[in-house]
């Protein structure tokens, strides 16, 4: 266990050295947020409510979605992918540390900057556009619970896509595909309730909604009580499923590499 804590601490320090990279990777997310804030602001600005969302709550929804999206930044993504592309993974495999666990520890370590920067942006938005409603007591505790599931979930999605580097030279394409699929099915920019039924049904069987939609809906109180608990359980369920899936794929990938000689 100590090894993983060390890895986490090392990464927590290392992110400071790569500040610029990280800020850049946040930029894309930020301007997407700004565009959506502007659009929803116009649509809901005059006191209108759509599908149960009024402007203050939509704003809160988008900000929580942004916070979730900021975790496991693109910089972390490229770091993981780059390791495999460079073949450095061979060195990592000689260490007496579980590969997947180690990468997770690093992500946890690096998360503090991501959260800090995301909160700064949120604060800025609130300063410029007015306050957002809080989650209340019960909502708040559920929200924290829901948020806890987001980091490992995001890690696993990014990690799984990074594993694609074992199978293809072109990570950029995989990376973009993942970004756009996640942005659609996580509901971070447009709540899933706005989409046609078939799309909502599809999203319901995919893990992406658990990455942003669930915590956001819990925060603004659209998910309450038992319903919220069920969705949060779904989040953690996905964490377990994807963790195991990732291990399976990793084992297969390593076998393939050693057979074909990397």
């Amino acid at each position, binding site marked *: 266990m100590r090894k993983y804590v060390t890895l986490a601490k090392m990464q927590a320090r290392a992110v400071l050295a790569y500040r610029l990279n990280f800020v850049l990777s946040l930029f894309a997310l930020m301007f997407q947020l700004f565009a959506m804030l502007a659009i929803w602001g116009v649509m809901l600005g005059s006191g209108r409510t759509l599908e149960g969302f009024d402007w203050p709550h939509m704003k809160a929804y988008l900000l929580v979605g942004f916070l979730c999206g900021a975790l496991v930044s693109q910089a972390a993504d490229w770091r993981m992918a780059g390791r495999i592309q460079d073949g450095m993974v061979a060195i990592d495999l000689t260490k007496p540390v579980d590969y997947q666990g180690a990468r997770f520890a690093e992500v946890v370590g690096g998360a503090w900057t991501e959260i800090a920067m995301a909160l700064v942006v949120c604060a800025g938005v609130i300063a410029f556009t007015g306050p957002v409603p809080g989650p209340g007591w019960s909502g708040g505790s559920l929200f924290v619970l829901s948020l806890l599931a987001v980091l490992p979930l995001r890690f696993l999605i990014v990690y799984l896509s990074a594993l694609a580097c074992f199978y293809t030279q072109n990570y*950029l394409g995989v990376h973009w595909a993942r970004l756009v699929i996640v942005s659609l099915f996580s509901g971070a920019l447009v709540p899933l309730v706005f989409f046609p039924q078939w799309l909502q049904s599809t999203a319901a069987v995919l893990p992406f909604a658990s990455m942003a939609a669930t915590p956001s809906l819990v925060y603004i109180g659209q998910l309450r009580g038992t319903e919220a608990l069920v969705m949060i359980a779904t989040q953690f369920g996905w964490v377990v499923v994807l963790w195991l899936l990732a291990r399976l794929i990793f084992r297969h990938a390593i076998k393939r590499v050693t057979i074909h000689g990397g």
Partner: protein
Amino acid sequence: MRRTVRLYRRLLGAHLRAALQYEADFWIMIGAAALTQVIGVVFLGAIFAKIPELHGWAFWEVVTVYAMVSIGEGVGSLFFEGTWRLARRINLGELDYLLVRPYPVALQVMGSDVGLHGAGNLVVGGVLLGLGVANSRIEWSLGTVALGVLLLISAIVIKTAISLGTNSGSFWIAGPVSVFGYALHQVGDLARYPITIYALGVRLFIGVVVPFAFVSFFPVAVLLDRGDQAKLGLLTPIVAVYCVVAAWWVFRRGLRRYESAGN
């Protein structure tokens, strides 16, 4: 002039051959780029399912604005991708050989890579543009068509010039990646939507300082005959000329800085 174009095609062609044999699975990239544009429109569709218009802009009109950005990006990636490698080349001192060849350095840089994913942006953007103008209230005449073509070309020129100008920031800010270029590219995404939704400060920035709004919003406003916005839109070709001159100037200043650094 013809020599310049002919040689540019040669340079691009060489990199295209390299890109095709080196970039395994480039179809993934093209597909992902295309998908990104499509999903953006899916978002718009979901939003417009609930409301009829955004600041007086109907769904297909907004799609047209969106499509212009996609097209600009697509052309940029396919034909001028090398611009984004500038930071790296400066970092590694790889401009030295370019400086001693009898061909404009900026063009050598811009033509030094081919971004195949641009095909995805371009195709989807083209389709969206076609659908957008077909479904919008545009009074078509021979004059409008000619104007439309002129505006489209100007918009593409502006986007390319902005890319060159912002990436030239790497001459002053060292590093393996073009900070300035990438950051402003993200800002440019704001111009995918009618800019009236933004605060004045933002509108001034993307309208005047870095004229992304003239890549998409204003040219489309001309075709849709939207009063004052259309009048501003008629300036698009002039803005294009201004951007080219400005970008060229920034690049040359940067190049002089590079040379004097004793490389």
